[in-house]
């Protein structure tokens, strides 16, 4: 597969975060074109492009927009676009670089989205730790306003739009859209029961569309290139490009934008091969919440539909790559510690389940686990999966069940060896 930089095309150019540089590289041309179209035609265009949400779930963006645009009787100001920029899924490192380098592409997408769904107010919820992204996006909003792309009567069309940049405060759960809305309303970030969905009862109980950074940044290109152009970039069902964020045991980790459906074998090749000359042992196709895959999946097209067929998910196309010297139990232990820390505590199966997960993984590492513990992990997983409000609990089970599925023998070796069989293994006291 060839590399096809679309969203990353301005990376490495002269300060693309400054509006004058962004404009030189075709910036805000998409907005200018969009404002000549009818809002409904824009929604149809995005529907036709089959753009699917880049935040993990892959929900069709045009359809999402149409839900919010539906209630015609509702006044323009009474609905919202909210941008989920709370990137924090382990392995995922795509939205922050995009906002730090090319914030205007996302902002242009936001303005187009607001125009399409007839909103006049958007909020960008950026995770609090991402100060440099908050800084760049805040400056970009000010520049866009000074140029007349934001504010009142945008480019003389009579369309008004404002964007508020909102920094979070450190909670992975706020990447869940309803928890994000609660957090944005100044509450603890805990998920809401759905239905009602944000499309009808979102921010301040108003119709709201919550879109990911990469999703919105794709919109100006769709407007400029057309739905067919975008569709042709990727395979059937998974149109467009994907920014594969490669990390771990490869020579050149980084952001590689290629058509959706690129295989891991091709990605490792793009990244210069494995860093330690070892064989690839396991990888996540899209962050820690997507069940891990193994060398048998090296030639699997990494797109929305193909990955689901083998029991995982494309997620955020954050590909973490580990080699044969990496202990899968240690990796999983650190992931479940993350989920335990980040569980918001609302639902018992997730809150308690992740707590008991960690205890068992500690026993596996300190050598006191029994073979029954492995079965207990599976039993626990059965009691977490599908039994909580949101997907955090489900995500916590992914590394556990998938690692046992593919590497049960390694768990057994931890039990029989009374601790991690890998050289250099040690328990890191107090790190969690």
């Amino acid at each position: 597969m060839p590399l096809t930089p679309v969203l990353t095309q301005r990376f490495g150019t002269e300060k693309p975060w400054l509006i004058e540089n962004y404009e030189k590289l075709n910036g805000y041309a998409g907005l200018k074109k969009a404002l000549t179209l009818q809002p409904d035609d824009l929604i149809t265009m995005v529907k036709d492009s089959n753009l699917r949400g880049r935040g993990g779930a892959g929900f069709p963006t045009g359809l999402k927009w149409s839900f919010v645009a539906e209630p015609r009787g509702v006044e323009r100001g009474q609905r919202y676009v909210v941008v989920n920029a709370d990137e924090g899924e382990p392995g995922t490192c795509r939205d922050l670089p995009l906002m730090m380098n090319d914030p205007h592409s996302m902002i242009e997408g936001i303005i187009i989205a607001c125009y399409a769904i007839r909103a006049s107010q958007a909020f960008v919820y950026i995770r609090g730790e991402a100060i440099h992204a908050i800084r760049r996006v805040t400056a970009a909003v000010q520049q866009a306003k000074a140029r007349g792309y934001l504010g009142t009567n945008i480019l003389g069309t009579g369309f008004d739009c404002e964007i508020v940049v909102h920094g979070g405060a450190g909670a992975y759960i706020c990447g869940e859209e309803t928890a994000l809305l609660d957090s944005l309303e100044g509450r603890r970030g805990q998920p809401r029961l759905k239905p009602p969905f944000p499309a009808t009862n979102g921010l301040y109980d108003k119709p709201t569309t919550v879109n990911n950074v990469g999703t919105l940044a794709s919109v100006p290109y769709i407007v400029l290139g057309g739905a067919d152009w975008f569709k042709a970039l990727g395979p059937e069902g998974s149109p467009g490009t994907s920014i594969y964020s490669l990390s771990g045991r490869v020579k050149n980790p980084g952001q590689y934008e290629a058509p959706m459906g690129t295989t891991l074998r091709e990605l490792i090749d793009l990244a210069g091969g494995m860093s330690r000359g070892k064989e690839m042992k396991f990888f996540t196709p899209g962050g820690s919440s997507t069940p891990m895959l193994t060398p048998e999946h090296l030639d699997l097209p990494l797109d929305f539909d193909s990955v689901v067929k083998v029991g995982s998910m494309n997620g955020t196309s954050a590909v973490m790559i580990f080699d044969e010297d990496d202990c899968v139990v240690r990796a999983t232990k650190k992931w479940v510690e993350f989920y335990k820390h980040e569980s918001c505590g609302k639902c018992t199966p997730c809150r308690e389940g992740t707590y008991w997960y960690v205890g068992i993984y500690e026993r596996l590492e300190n050598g006191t686990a029994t073979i029954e513990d492995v079965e207990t992990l599976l039993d626990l997983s059965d009691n977490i999966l599908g039994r909580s409000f949101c997907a955090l609990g489900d995500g916590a089970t992914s590394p556990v069940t998938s690692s046992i599925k593919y590497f049960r023998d390694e768990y057994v070796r931890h039990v029989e060896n009374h601790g991690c069989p890998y050289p250099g293994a040690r328990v890191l006291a107090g790190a969690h």
Partner: protein
Amino acid sequence: MSEEQVFDAEPANFRTSVIQLDRPGDPSVFDVSTVADARAIIARYPEGGARSALLPMLHLVQSVQGQVSPDGIAFCADQLNITKAQVAAVATFYTMYKKNPTGDYLVSVCTNTLCGMLGGDDIYAALREHLGVAAGGETTGDGTVTLEHAECLAACDYAPVLTVNYEFFDNQTVESAKAITTELRNGAKPTPTRGAPLCTFKQIERQIAGFFDEQTAAPDAPSIGTPGLAGVKLAADRGESAPSYGEGA
């Protein structure tokens, strides 16, 4: 059992540290400029949505006190006309609100799976020893550096990473991390790999609350490193690009 005894039983609990029955918190310790800033935050949100200002406002009180104290809780409650219990419930939920005074520089080492296995665990352990601090966000005796371990900082392609007041120091080693903290303790300001020149923890909290000026907007600060450029560079080397826009465009 008196109320005091109940609260003494759990000294490490953040909830009890920000809601203290014997110390209700004094909102008046914040001056007029902080009040003006709080009003400016509220003004960002639509009518009826004032409470949305709470998260940025808690960052604002941290920018004054270096922590969220009972005073900060009382201040936010006053400004938003909600109860202190409502504010405390929020303040205790999010990890960026600190219950203890934070040093001038908050050093966060990612120990999630990817960074941890590529060296982050070693870096965190080494810094604890190097700085002589206990686990769990402790501060050096001179008040310069607070060390914490962090969950994924969304920079896995630069692993292992640490941040100083949330600015990125990429591709760290035990030695480079030690050198950074030594510099910080000596009053120097090492340059982040990606992000603006370092300021203090209080100053960065003001930025997180959404207040930037010409200097803190740092238009010249680096935003990308080798991993971020890897794909576009390789594409250029190979002469590959996305197909140009089609007809109807």
